[in-house]
């Protein structure tokens, strides 16, 4: 029983890293990206490649993942940030779908759909992290560090500029803020930190394949942020826990027909999204900052 909870906790903390980093650009900067899962994937594949080909330890592997994710996110950010919100969604959509095809076809590196198996355990300062309890410590540590980094950024003048840009880009620009650089930096930071989650994921499951990095994953991450509460630090964490626990909780209900459980889970999840959006669009925890609005956005 304990092992089951630890497993769930590790998955929650990995997804929480993704949700928190997505919230950084979505909630605080108003940049709606459906490509977050691709940076998750880049982190995972890079870390695996570096660990398996060169025997690298966890820190090196993760750093490599972060670097590559940052570079790729530049490719997305620089051109696409010139256009309005809904176009950025579409551009990120295009990049996400393209990435899935590349993940599937570049078999020598990613293993295609068959994936990469027997990934060696993470090695940290000579110590191999094989026990699930130890891994949980590692992933919680990573989550904590990342939350602190995001918190620091949000509370700095950089964070204030981000929020200003989110609320009214023209005004921020008129005030002398270099909008493009600030937004690009936010995207790069968010993507690089998302790669950390990818590295953790690969070392934990010892197996990765493209199915974990598809469009559905990006959408699920976006749902975690929006349902939990945008532009708050606690919101994405709450959203992650809820969305990940939902299937587990539902599977305990005794009177659901076995063949329909999966569908019912998805229906509940969809219903939750709809109802929350109608009655509480700021998300469950979102009463600090108002969500970005399509009309002139003052809270």
């Amino acid at each position: 029983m304990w092992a089951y909870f630890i497993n769930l906790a590790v998955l929650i903390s990995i997804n929480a890293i993704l949700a928190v980093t997505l919230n950084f650009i979505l909630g605080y900067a108003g940049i709606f990206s459906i490509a977050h899962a691709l940076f998750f994937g880049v982190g995972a594949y890079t870390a695996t490649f570096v660990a398996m080909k060169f025997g690298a330890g966890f820190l090196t592997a993760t750093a490599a993942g972060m670097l590559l994710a940052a570079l790729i996110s530049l490719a997305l950010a620089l051109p696409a940030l010139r256009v309005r919100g809904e176009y950025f969604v579409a551009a990120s959509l295009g990049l996400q779908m393209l990435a899935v095809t590349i993940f599937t076809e570049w078999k020598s590196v990613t293993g295609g759909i068959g994936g990469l198996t027997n990934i060696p355990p993470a090695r940290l300062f000579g110590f191999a992290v094989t026990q699930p309890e130890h891994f949980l410590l590692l992933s919680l540590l990573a989550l904590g560090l990342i939350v602190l980094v995001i918190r620091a950024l949000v509370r700095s003048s950089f964070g204030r500029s981000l929020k200003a840009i989110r609320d009214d880009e023209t005004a921020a620009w008129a005030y002398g803020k270099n909008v493009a650089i600030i937004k690009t930096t936010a995207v790069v930071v968010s993507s690089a930190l998302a790669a950390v989650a990818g590295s953790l994921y690969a070392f934990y499951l010892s197996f990765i394949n493209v199915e974990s990095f598809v469009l559905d994953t990006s959408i699920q991450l976006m749902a975690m942020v929006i349902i939990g509460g945008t532009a708050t630090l606690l919101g994405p964490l709450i959203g992650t826990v809820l969305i990940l626990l939902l299937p587990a909780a539902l599977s305990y209900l005794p009177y659901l027909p076995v063949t329909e459980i999966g569908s019912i889970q998805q229906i509940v999840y969809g219903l939750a999204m709809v109802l929350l959006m109608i009655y509480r669009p700021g998300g469950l925890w979102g009463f600090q900052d108002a969500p970005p609005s399509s009309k002139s956005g003052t809270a």
Partner: protein
Amino acid sequence: MLLLQLLINGLQLGAIYALTAVGFSLIFGATKIFHVAHGAAFTIAAYLFWWTTAVKGWPWPLAAGLAVLAAVVFGLAMERFIYRPIQRHEGAFFTVFIAAFGVQIIVQNLIGTVFGRGFVSVTTPLSRSVEVLPGLFVAPVAALAIVLAVVGFTGLTIYLARTHWGMAMRALSENPDLIRVFGLDPGRVAQYAFAIGSAIVVPGAIFTAMTAGLNPAVGAHVMLISLAATIVGGIGSLRGAAYGGLLLGLAENLALWRLDPQWSEAVTFVVLFLFIIFRPAGFFGRPHAAK
């Protein structure tokens, strides 16, 4: 001959994409709602058509009529029960997106539960292609799809240009208040947009049921392509959405001339990405699309 065949296939597929994209573009253009659940209308219409013809044995016109009715009811229900309440609360653009996506998930799973998750199709001699030239095969249903797309699109253009409701729909995207000044209710105009936009997917849904076949995820796929087509064609331009759909259908098939099949879907999204970077306004979009 392979090239010509791929071209024809591309036109057939493009016609279906164009119809669905036009529906999405009409709704978005008139109401500014990112109706991602549009694919669900497609799925519902397609499955109802299949069920009434293949399972219940109804005559086609009746089945098609039911499909249209269902799609329209779905579109109207989305507008009335989902989008309007959200917009009342100063809903963010993307709050709408997530809610629509939630509906998409619900519909996809309900259809799977009710109709089964396997592959189903409507068997009809119309989907068998005929060798019109040596090596060139065209199915009657393909020709029908192209004809219907042209007819439907022309009809829609006339409607928007000539009728009161049509003009009101065009005005709604520019200036909702002006509509009120003229004594029309923006809510009603939005309803018309949803009704027509949802109804127009039905021919594509029926053709898909007859050719490629259905599974509960079919709407989501069509939705993605429609979205891409709308952007490539230019948001706010129905003509653009239609051409965008055609272009993407052609690209997906012509890619096979030189590339391996697994890259044909990627081609669609590369096209989308390039358009967004270099020409965000699309083919015919309004100038204020980019910054």
